[in-house]
């Protein structure tokens, strides 16, 4: 870890650390007063452990006492890797996931995916590990950390005058919840009706993901998760915009869905955010659909000049061992590395004043430019 990163934020300082290796996303939030919140999880390349865990240990945070909540916005691979180990280390943290995930069809898919060997169910298997850990705590008569949320839920509130705090979820809406239930039922039936066992087909749970609004003192932060826009006015970003209070606008934005076009709406920038606010994103370096695209970067820069990414979106070709390297080159087949080298963006600001956010880039992180 870089030496400069070892300094802890002051008690009256907010910190947002965004880890995004290129495929994965994890946010570590200092809520003031030495209390922490972790949103999603990805892995650290060097240690293979949850990036949030490595960082918090490095800066000397007492994981058992100081981490208050862990939020799992959705169960996609890139948002959940290492979540079970994070929960195990943060014994007293509450674990909050979307209300869509308690659907029986989804839980059946999770249980079925555990029986498919070699399917490397990824996110589903990690979610199963989280549930097994909660089950184990239940057997030991320990309080269950599991909670669910939907649009309008308040996850954490502190009315202390010196450090007021409120974390609320803006999604999923009822429409999105219903849509997710239908998707889960459809995918479960697809899994059961296929002739041969197969890995769970891709599901797009982005509409069921949790968008968070964090108010700490005079600062307000919007964490967009992987939320996307929908045609329906009662779902996706439209539903969030229709219920947003006009007076409160966020000063800092974690751009939704890796900066994609589908994760954006002009209303987000005009209704929910102050002009030219700092915005950060993690890329999604996949072969089929890498994000953000050049057009996405151009669009984001039109919205705000203060945009940052934790890593570039391009995929790196992997050099294989011989003779695989020689043979596959001859056949013109490229194997790309799903990256895990760390890119880290750290933003800090005082809780009590409306200062400018100080943003530092580490590793592969950089400021977006045209």
């Amino acid at each position, binding site marked *: 870890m870089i030496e400069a990163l070892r300094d802890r934020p002051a008690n009256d300082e907010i910190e947002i650390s965004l880890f995004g290796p290129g495929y994965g996303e994890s946010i570590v939030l200092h809520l003031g007063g030495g209390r922490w919140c972790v949103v999603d999880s990805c*892995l650290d390349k060097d240690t293979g452990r949850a990036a949030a865990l490595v960082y918090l240990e490095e800066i000397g945070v007492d994981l058992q006492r100081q981490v208050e909540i862990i939020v799992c916005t959705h169960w996609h*691979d890139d948002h959940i*890797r290492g979540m079970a180990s994070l929960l195990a280390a943060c014994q007293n943290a509450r674990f909050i996931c979307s209300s869509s995930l*308690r659907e*029986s069809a989804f*839980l*059946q898919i*999770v*249980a*079925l995916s*555990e*029986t*498919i060997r*070699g*399917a*490397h169910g*990824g996110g589903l*298997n*990690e979610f*199963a590990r989280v*549930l097994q850990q*909660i*089950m184990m705590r*239940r057997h030991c008569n320990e309080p*269950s950390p*599991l909670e*669910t949320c939907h649009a309008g839920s308040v996850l954490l509130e502190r009315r202390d005058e010196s450090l007021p705090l409120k974390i609320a979820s803006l999604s999923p809406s009822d429409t999105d919840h219903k849509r997710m239930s239908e998707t889960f039922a459809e995918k479960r039936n697809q899994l*059961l009706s*296929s*002739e*041969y*066992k*197969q*890995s*769970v*087909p*891709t599901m797009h749970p982005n509409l069921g993901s949790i968008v968070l609004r964090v108010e700490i003192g005079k600062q307000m932060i919007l964490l967009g998760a992987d939320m996307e826009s929908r045609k329906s006015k009662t779902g996706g970003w439209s539903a969030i915009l229709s219920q947003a209070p006009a007076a409160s606008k966020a000063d800092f934005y974690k751009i939704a869905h890796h900066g994609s076009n589908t994760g954006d709406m002009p209303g987000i920038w005009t209704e929910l955010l102050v002009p030219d606010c700092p915005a950060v994103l993690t890329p999604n370096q*996949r*072969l*089929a659909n890498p994000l953000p695209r050049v057009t996405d970067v151009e669009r984001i820069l039109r919205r705000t000049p203060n945009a940052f990414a934790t890593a570039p979106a391009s*995929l790196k070709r*992997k050099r*294989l*061992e*011989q*003779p*695989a390297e*020689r*043979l*596959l080159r001859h*056949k*013109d*087949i*490229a*194997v*790309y*590395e*799903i990256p*895990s080298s760390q890119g880290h963006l750290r933003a800090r600001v005082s809780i009590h004043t409306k200062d400018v956010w100080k943003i530092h880039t580490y590793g592969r992180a950089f400021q977006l430019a045209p």
Partner: protein
Amino acid sequence: MTDVSSLDSYAYSNQLGSAPSVLTSSGDTDFADAMIYDPAQNKDTAFEFNGESSSHTQHGSFVRRRIMNFPVARIQKKRRNFRETSSWEGVVTQVSDEGVIAKLCRRYQDFPAEEALIPWGEIDPADQALAKEGAMFSWKVGYLENNGQRLSVSHIEFRRIPSFSARELAAAKMKAAEYSALFHD
């Protein structure tokens, strides 16, 4: 040794990693003396019992004959070994005109760490119908050593695991119910 090379085409094992087999003889044909039972040979036997003589005709008897020893057939493996240098478990994430995009996972990894576009030409025509989203396959790359020659080989084989059994379904249902109970505590 008589190599029955015409039977090579019957070699049943044409799979990667196992050498094709051929039917061969164990040695040359030769001859040997043997006692053979011949039912056409009748033998009359005369004997005396309590002062009375009697005779009996036995039908068939053993005779010494010279017979041909045919070589014993046996399966012999050709010297063809596959040495695996890289292997992945893959899951198809997208199907396109050019091929399939797949997430690749090495053994003992929890999460896929690699991704590739595999052209249709690399996939056995018999397996192409199986290459749908979610389909699992194994991909092995290595050397095929064939009588001293070394060939680089890439082999993709789609998994044909029968769908969930009644027992698996019942177990999954029970587990899902346990998971569900956690949300209702």
